[in-house]
């Protein structure tokens, strides 16, 4: 195994769990998430000579993963039935409210992939608008728009289950 390949394997070994979790939030299915990670790592290897010289490889890999997700979803999303209630019932983290976690997974599965990716980048990866725009390859205005639409869609689906009663934005 050559030097760059060793670096690649070491890098992936240290990030695999995190990449799988990000992919899972985008896909809501561990098998699909692993397929997404597999495609991401394949592309990462293709571009590894460039990636290895970057200051922030993690950001680069995240961009590959999200854009791969969006690219594949664009061709496949309408063939999938993304209705609330169709997400598979995987295990739920200990200590979490199972109903709330399953609700949010079903709600995420039901919103358009680009909105979902925007919400995951903003509220799971803690990226700001500009950073999210870089990952998604769009303007900050579009990120704001996708965020508002995604939040509104989640609210529409989650509020009845949450039973909240106050003004929300």
């Amino acid at each position: 195994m050559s030097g760059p390949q060793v670096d690649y394997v070491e890098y992936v070994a240290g990030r695999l769990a995190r990449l799988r979790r990000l992919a899972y939030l985008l896909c809501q299915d561990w098998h699909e998430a692993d397929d997404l990670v597999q495609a991401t790592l394949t592309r990462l290897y293709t571009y590894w000579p460039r990636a290895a010289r970057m200051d922030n490889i993690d950001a680069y890999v995240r961009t590959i993963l999200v854009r791969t997700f969006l690219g594949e979803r664009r061709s496949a999303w309408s063939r999938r039935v993304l209705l609330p209630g169709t997400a598979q019932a995987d295990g739920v983290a200990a200590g979490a409210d199972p109903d709330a976690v399953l609700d949010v997974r079903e709600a995420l599965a039901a919103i358009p992939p680009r909105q979902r990716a925007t919400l995951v980048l903003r509220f799971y990866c803690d990226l700001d608008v500009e950073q999210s725009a870089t990952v998604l390859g769009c303007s900050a205005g579009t990120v704001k728009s996708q965020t508002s639409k995604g939040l509104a869609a989640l609210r529409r689906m989650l509020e009845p289950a949450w039973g909240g009663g106050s003004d929300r934005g």
Partner: protein
Amino acid sequence: MDEAGLRTLLDRLADTEPPPARVDLDAAIARGRRGRRWRRVRAGIWALLAAGAVAAVVAALVVPAQPSAQRPAYGAAAPARFNPLVPYAEFGWLPPGFQVGVRGGTMSRSGPAQLILDAFSGSNAILQLFVYPTGICHVGHAEVCSAYNTSQPVLSRAPDVHGHRAYWLRTASLTWEYAPGAWSVLSWPQISPWPPDGSERAAVLRVAAGVRYGQTAPIRFPYWLSGLATPWRVSNVDYTLLAGRPAVQTLEVSNGPADTAGVDTIDVDFTPAAHSDWSCPTEGIQHVTVDGAAAVLDNLPGGERVCIPDWRGLRLSVMTAFLETPRPHPADVLTIARKLHPIGPDPAHWTADLQR
């Protein structure tokens, strides 16, 4: 939506116990090697493009026919498809504090089968109106808008809107048939109780009754297109309101019907170059020119983009999110960029005549 609550739920969802990983690193490396060879082939394609050697690929310019918007009486027939360049509806009345357009920080989306209008309040509540052309939605025990895979259970009958049937939906929404076979959905930010009562109920119904259909004000653009090669067509436009007039934020073109499987899309984004909130990439790029303007070609995995930092005062990005090689054709992004003709950052000079 409570953003902190969403953050917590996403963290918990990500902490779901994963099954053993199926990721095969050896396979990734083997396939990645083949990808490197493919990249070298593509680099050759780009060199040819830069030299103008594939200009013959560009097909004849075709302006796709768009249905014309008319201003019907309330309840008159709605079109079977909207013209994405002319938003079919607008809010007529909003509750105090809600705004649309740049001042309200909102963006709307106009497509052939769905129009989404957003209004924001000072407390960051979002009120959304979805308008569908004839035949997209059907209402029984639930409202089903098939083109968008949405299904919302009906709670009960609501007061008619301008004499047309309306229903309260479980998802804090009101839907009404604004024209035969054509439905609108108003998503309301206040959800308890739902259906609402008192002044809340009056406000929901007043917003619904105030929606104006059959609008004819076109979206204005800071650039125009000398045409789109078949089969590319305008599929969606994200727009805001500038001085009360629709103005583009993102133009989306597709090589097939909007929002359907197997269709590639390319987004055209812009910002004033002098006040830009995003930059063109500087790493891993190829330098090209577009109509004499310096531009960069960014072929990151999962996306291909032409970015022009300053073209007559505009910063422009033409991007696709695809990388499923070899689609879309590597020439498409650059081809469409070269169909753009920037006007400038001053909205007073923008045009509604997008395709010439």
